[in-house]
């Protein structure tokens, strides 16, 4: 049994999810597989550690782009819960009745879905080695600007908030934008507020207040055994962990 979500466990989960359309075995009671949007990678590790220490349930995390993970879930990947950065994807999954609807009977008002797990804001960031910028620099074509591609949650949110920008490269994930800035290959990048606070190599390009359009994370349980974990995500302890990582959580439910 894995005692910790090791890379081996993640690899196994990925391999399983790649060819698992025919896999109908019931998931192991003592291990959960949770798919998380890549921008939640670090906070999800803390959340599942906390969950493991209180419930004794070991969680195997699979982090990736929300849209890729959603496609895997649609193809039958054995995930017990899904934390996505794209609420629309989530609605789509729910419409397809992949979100477990039958579980309210088994526990007292256990939420199988949380539509507003947390909020993350977009920040225009710069490498810490570069100079501080002004908002007008965002439209300066001589500066190298990178953003997420359309279809990726951070890309759609950036387009909704900033409109057309002289972007030099559309990256497949927020993490790829972070890497461009960390390597100092770009002057400006549109990333998540949580990424800026988590990476020493990144700083806000200028002082910015949290503004929407922004990202609302949603969580869904995809199996009976995923329900308690999703319910845990609404607890005060889980909200503390989310807040500690810079995510904005709503009023107590």
């Amino acid at each position: 049994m894995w005692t910790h979500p090791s890379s081996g466990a993640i690899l196994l989960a990925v391999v399983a999810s790649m060819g698992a359309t025919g896999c109908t075995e019931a998931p192991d009671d003592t291990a959960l597989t949770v798919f998380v949007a890549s921008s939640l990678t670090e906070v999800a590790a803390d959340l599942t550690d906390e969950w493991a220490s209180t419930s004794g349930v070991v969680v195997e995390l699979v982090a990736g782009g929300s849209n890729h993970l959603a496609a895997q879930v649609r193809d039958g990947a054995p995930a017990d819960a899904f934390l996505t950065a794209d609420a629309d994807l989530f609605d789509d999954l729910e419409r397809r009745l992949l979100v477990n609807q039958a579980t309210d009977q088994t526990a007292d008002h256990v939420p199988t879905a949380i539509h507003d797990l947390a909020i993350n804001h977009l920040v225009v960031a710069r490498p810490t080695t570069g100079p501080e910028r002004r908002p007008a620099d965002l439209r300066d074509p001589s500066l190298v600007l990178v953003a997420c591609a359309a279809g990726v949650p951070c890309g759609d949110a950036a387009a909704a908030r900033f409109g057309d920008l002289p972007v030099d490269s559309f990256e497949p994930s927020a993490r790829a934008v972070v890497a461009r800035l960390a390597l100092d290959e770009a002057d400006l990048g549109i990333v998540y507020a949580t990424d800026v606070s988590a990476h020493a190599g990144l700083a806000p390009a200028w002082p910015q207040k949290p503004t929407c359009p922004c990202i609302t994370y949603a969580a869904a349980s995809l199996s009976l055994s995923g329900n308690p974990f999703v319910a845990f995500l609404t607890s005060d302890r889980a909200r503390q962990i989310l807040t500690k990582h810079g995510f904005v959580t709503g009023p107590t439910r």
Partner: protein
Amino acid sequence: MTRPPNAPRSVLVVAALAMAFLALPVLALLQRAPWSGLVDLLRRREVVQALGVSLLVSLTAAGIVLVLGTPMAWVLARVAVPFRRLVRTLVVLPMVLPPVVGGTALLFALGRRGLVGQWLERWFDVTLPFTTAGAVVAATFVALPFYVITVEGALRTSGEDLEQVAATLGADPLTVLRRITVPRLIPAMGAGLALAWARALGEFGATITFAGNLPGRTRTLPLATFQALESDPEAAVALSLVLLAVSLAVLLPTRHRWLPTR
């Protein structure tokens, strides 16, 4: 199919299975193709744009491969290079290296904070990442080994007899190269170039890592296909068909010259 006496049935069966394994995904792609809407899909601006970038990048890379790769293959085959085995291993390394790793290595070398790239920017005001030139660099990096090993193999199997005869008759080394070596090498150069060009056309990982992804500048057909898979799978299949058709159009005429000529 008639069975020649030297072909055991078991070998034929395994070979047929291998053929089916290679052909099946292509057939599956054709079966999923949105044939009725195909023309409209292919006329879309982003498809035309990606095809243009792809042709520009892969043909330029093929030209550079020809110019750089021919001397390299000749030196590897004919000159007593010190540590030749090590050198040849380094030459073919990009063939086995994951392209994403290749792209990252290119960033460290030629990015604007890279080993050489920082001087390119400081002295010549040249930055390669996020430019079409950067996409050409990425494509050349992955394609060059295919050309070099094809041409080097042909040079080795063709031997040096004629060249030595020409030299004893008084031809200087450059004349030998021009009149004897290169003319005999042309079929292999064509085959190597076709392989290298096909590799450049299909290049994805090093391109997106080193050159980024911008329509009209660095978004090649494979990048556009990847992008379309997220939002518009039908367009992704259409783009794949374009890649398939362009590749077949170039590879089919060279089919007799795959192997180095003897």
